[in-house]
């Protein structure tokens, strides 16, 4: 039995050593990466200057045509992340501040995502390779239920979120494979789909009374003298439960309601996401309302 216990101890030791080794190798690779996604790009950058930074979910990513801002002479990047919640948008802004970005305006898509203050694991996982290299990221995750495992168990975060930051991602970073996340200044144009789903039901969604991460973003902007522009973006007219946007307006009167700026189905790729044509109409309206000198 003694021999077996020693043998088992060796196996455990080997496992721990391998975990440390892999953790180090993967983290090193992610520290070098800035062409795979928006999070990597921000983390591995320094002191950028922007006139406009766009934050939010896919409804920011697919709706704000960053190039149209640039054409107006406004240095802009769309940091909207498909699938992301306000948890990630807030962390993204904090990271930018940590990296001494100078930002004049933040446009935040704040509508459906106000209904929860949880992390979107598929997106938040992409911050985790840097958890030991950024106090901001560490603090942001510190209230999550699995923080101790993610922070203290070597390689655990890469195992838990292997489809996002596992071997495949590590491999692509290592061979320098790019993604299209940063094309078009972060804006991802959608095409009109013949069979796009033009129905949506948001009856069960209720905006949180005080969304923690929305408030965080608002406060960061205030603290750093950034002009904060929260907006609700368009959704197709067949949506059931449209009064959600009125509820948002009631709780957060400062959020600008642009839900009905684009309504026709022909401008939508799916019910919650406008096509490129719709996004251009919407962006033009935002530019006119907020960035035209009167």
């Amino acid at each position, binding site marked *: *039995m003694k*021999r*077996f216990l020693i*043998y*088992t101890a*060796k*196996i455990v030791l*080997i*496992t721990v050593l*391998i*975990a440390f080794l*892999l953790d180090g190798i993967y983290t090193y690779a992610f520290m070098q990466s800035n062409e795979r996604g928006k999070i990597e790009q921000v983390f591995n950058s320094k002191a950028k200057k922007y006139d406009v930074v766009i934050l939010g979910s896919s409804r920011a990513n697919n709706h704000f045509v960053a190039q149209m801002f640039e054409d107006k002479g406004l240095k802009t990047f769309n940091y909207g992340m498909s699938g992301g919640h306000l948890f990630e948008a807030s962390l993204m802004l904090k990271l930018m501040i940590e990296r001494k970005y100078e930002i004049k305006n933040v446009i935040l898509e704040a509508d459906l995502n106000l209904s929860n203050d949880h992390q979107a694991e598929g997106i938040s996982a992409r911050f985790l390779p840097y958890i030991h290299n950024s106090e901001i990221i560490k603090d942001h995750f510190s209230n999550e239920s699995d923080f101790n495992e993610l922070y203290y168990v070597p*390689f655990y975060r890469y*195992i*838990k*979120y*292997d*489809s*996002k930051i*596992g*071997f*495949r991602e590590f491999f692509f970073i290592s061979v320098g494979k790019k993604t299209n996340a940063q094309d078009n200044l972060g804006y991802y144009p959608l095409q009109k789909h013949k069979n796009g789903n033009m129905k949506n039901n948001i009856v069960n969604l209720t905006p949180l009374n005080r969304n923690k991460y929305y408030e965080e973003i608002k406060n960061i902007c205030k603290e750093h003298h950034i002009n904060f522009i929260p907006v609700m973006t368009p959704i197709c007219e067949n949506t059931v439960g449209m009064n959600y946007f009125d509820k948002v307006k009631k709780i957060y009167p400062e959020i600008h309601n642009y839900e009905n700026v684009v309504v026709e189905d022909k401008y939508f790729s799916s019910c919650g996401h406008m096509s490129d044509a719709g996004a251009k109409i919407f962006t033009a309206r935002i530019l006119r309302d907020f960035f035209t000198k009167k």
Partner: protein
Amino acid sequence: MFFNSIAFAIFLPIVFFLYWFVFNKNKSTQNALLIVASYYFYSCWDWRFLFLLVFSTFLDYYTGIQIEKGKSQKSRKFWFWLSITVNLGFLGVFKYYNFFASSFAELLTSAGFKASPLLLNVILPVGISFYTFHGLSYVIDIYFKRIKAEYNFVDYSLFVSYFPLLVAGPIERATHLLPQVKVKREFDFQTAKEGVYQIIWGLVKKVIIADTCAPYANAIFDNYTSMNSFSLILGAIYFAFQIYGDFSGYSDIALGVSKLFGLDLLRNFNYPYFSRDIAEFWRRWHISLSSWFRDYLYIPLGGSKGGLWMKIRNTFIIFVVSGFWHGANWTYIAWGFINAVYFLPLLLSNSNRNNMDTIQLKFNFDSIKVFASILYTFVLTCIAWVFFRARTITDAVSYLKRILTSKDFGFQYLDNERYSYELLLMIGIFVLIEWNNRTKVEPLSGKMSMLKTALAILAIMAFGTFSDYKEFIYFQF
């Protein structure tokens, strides 16, 4: 509690410690601990079905004794059929009732009658097919006087409920396991070490092969109408490796865990994809089930004795029933039937026991023949797996038809945001490792075992799929 879960990684060392350091006085204390651990293990899925397991155990224990004690053949027969009926009755209600009711209703509807079947809203108790078959083999063996009834309820309970084999086999025989639980187990370093190797290799199969293949196979099978020939072929191959990695991985872990407690379980897989014909495949795939059906169905039906038609009939019965055992769906029956069709030429030409020797390859023509026959058998197996995996028989036929009609062999981007060809290298490496170690139970033992073990652990951590967490496929059976 899955073998590949954190919960099991905590559970196993605790039971191991208690077993060898606290409850190691005699076989009774060892068995009692294992039963408590097994019931806890089972209740982690659904404690409500524990009563079913206990009832089934008690039924077979009691009827087994009554059969042995029976003074007249009539009384022996009564207890025998009582056990068979109740065991199969449970299986029938939980597993097959809805299938029969809805199939009957469909039949009536197609004959022009209006039928709305009364379906049961019950979930299938995990492992019911496995522990029912344990009990059945025990009772049948007593009835035919092959074994003596077990009078110690604790020992018998352990035979039925032993946690490594409780939910997905291997299907044990009383003749093999009961004698082992009747003596005190002494710790043996070599056996335990072999157990660790088997557990680690089982995890390699499960988390690297099965769980990595699963999202690709699912993406292809679920969208087969938009897939080209190449993707569809890959889909069938991925599923073949998914189910192999999943089930044989589970079996390896079960056998390995059991070795840690000094109990040897029946081998369930023996590199089935290196078979040279279908008969050999069935001697190497899910061995405990194949041999169960051979001993308790095929042979009682007359086996290969009798005339040609009898042989054919028995072959089809055993394969179709084996398919049906897997699940209440026509696709499983079709899968069994197809395997019977594959088997038929071997049976008719009396060559079903041709390939009993170990495969040896050299640089000569015979080796090319062997290699070709392995490939041919694998292709046949993959075709049958399409029926096993598809939702309906129509889907399976359309899937195979599309392989032939699409004629497009380009790479496709799948729904899971991966390219269809991505796993080929990994599968190739896996096949090479298994091929080079086909004479051993697992590839980690032997020379440089510590290095191989370390590499396996590294591979599990780096290449394993954990986030798309998967159950073991055979748990649903």
